[in-house]
C-alpha cells in the first residue's frame, strides 16, 4: 500500500489566493462560482474544468458526474500526492455538504474532459452539465482561460499569445 497524502496544501494555497472574480451561476440551492477551463492545443485530447460549488440548501449533496458537448467522456478527477509524485485518478464523486462548498482547483479536483472534439480556445465559453446525486442536472457555462492559468491570477497568468477564434455554436 502506498502511503498517500492529498495535495491539501496546494488546494489551500489556491483557495486562499482565489479572488472573488469570474462569473457565478445560480440554480436552486447551488451557486457555482467562477467555473473555468484551461485552453487546450489542437493536439491535446483532454482538458480540465475548475469551479467552486456552494450548497445553500439544507441537504447534503454530491457531484457525481458531468457531461459536455465538447468531450466524448467526462469524469471527476482528483490527485493523490505520493511524496512528490502526482497520481491523477477518477473519483466517484465530490461531497457538497449542506451550507458547504466543494472546491475544484488546480492540484486538487477537476472535471476532466476526455476526447475533446475541438480545442478549448481561450476567451470562449463552453457548456457543462453537472450531475448531482439529489439536485440532478445543472447546466453551466464555463469560461476558457489561458492554458497556464491557475484560477488565481489568470489576468497576469502568462504572456499574451493572442486568443483563439471565438467558437461558433
Amino acid at each position, binding site marked *: 500500500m502506498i502511503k498517500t497524502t492529498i495535495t491539501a496544501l496546494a488546494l489551500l494555497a489556491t483557495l486562499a489566493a482565489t479572488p472573488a472574480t469570474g462569473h457565478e451561476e445560480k440554480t436552486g440551492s447551488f451557486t457555482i462560482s467562477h467555473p473555468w477551463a484551461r485552453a487546450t492545443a489542437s493536439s491535446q485530447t*483532454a482538458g480540465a474544468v475548475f469551479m467552486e460549488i456552494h450548497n445553500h440548501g439544507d441537504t447534503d449533496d454530491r457531484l457525481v458526474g458531468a457531461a459536455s458537448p465538447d468531450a466524448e467522456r467526462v469524469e471527476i478527477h482528483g490527485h493523490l500526492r*505520493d511524496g512528490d509524485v502526482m497520481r491523477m485518478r477518477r473519483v466517484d464523486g465530490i461531497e457538497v455538504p449542506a451550507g458547504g462548498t466543494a472546491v475544484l482547483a488546480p*492540484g486538487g479536483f477537476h472535471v476532466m474532459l476526455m476526447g475533446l472534439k475541438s480545442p478549448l480556445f481561450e476567451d470562449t465559453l463552453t457548456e457543462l452539465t453537472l450531475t448531482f446525486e439529489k439536485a440532478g442536472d445543472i447546466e453551466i457555462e464555463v469560461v476558457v482561460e489561458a492554458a497556464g492559468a491557475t484560477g488565481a491570477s489568470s489576468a497576469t497568468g502568462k504572456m499574451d499569445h493572442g486568443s483563439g477564434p471565438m467558437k461558433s455554436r
Partner: protein
Amino acid sequence: MNRKLHIGIVLLVVAVFGFGAWLNFHGDEPAESTPVAGMVVNVGIGGPFELTDHTGARFSSESFAGNYALVYFGYTFCPDICPTELGQMAIAIDELGDDGARVSPVMITIDPKRDTPEVLSEYVPLFHERLIGLTGSEEEIRAVATRYRVFYQRFDDPNYTEYLMDHSSFVYLIGPDGTIAAMFRYGTPPEEMASTIRQHMKAQS
C-alpha cells in the same frame, strides 16, 4: 482572511481527509523512492542531454551553456499539474524582466509515445513563446529522467480508453555550468522561483 474563507478551508480540509477513503485508487504497485527535494541539490544528479525538440530537430542541452534553463518533466495529456507548472515557469521568467531572456523554459515529455514533436509543437506556444518541448525514444527519455531522478509510470485503468502518467513534479533550474542549481517542488510560487534565479544570477556575476 474573512470568515467565509475560513469556513471554506475547514470544509476543504474535511473534504480532503475524506477523499482518501473513497477514492478509487488502483495504484498498488510498490512505491518507488521520490527525488530529493529542496533548494540545495546533491551533485551527481542531472547533467547534459540530447533529445528531439518540438520542431523535430535534435537538441542538445549544450545550447544553454552560460545561461539558465527551467526544466519540467511532464506530458501533454495532463490537464492540470503540468499546465499549472508550465504556467508558473512562464510567470517566473516574465517576472525576471530582461534577465528572463537568459532563462530557457523547457518541457521534457515523460510520455514520448503520445508526445511526438508535432503534438508538442501545438502545445508549447500556449505557455511561453520560448518554451522548448523535448521528446525522444522511450530509452532516451528513460535515461534522462533517471539521471534527473524523475519518477514516472504509466497508469492504465480498464475503464479508460487513454492511459495516464503518474509522475514526480519538479521544476529544475539548470545553471550556466550545466548542473542543477535548484529544484522547485510542485506549488512553488513563481515569485520564489524568480528570486532564486535572481540570486543565482547575482552570485555568478
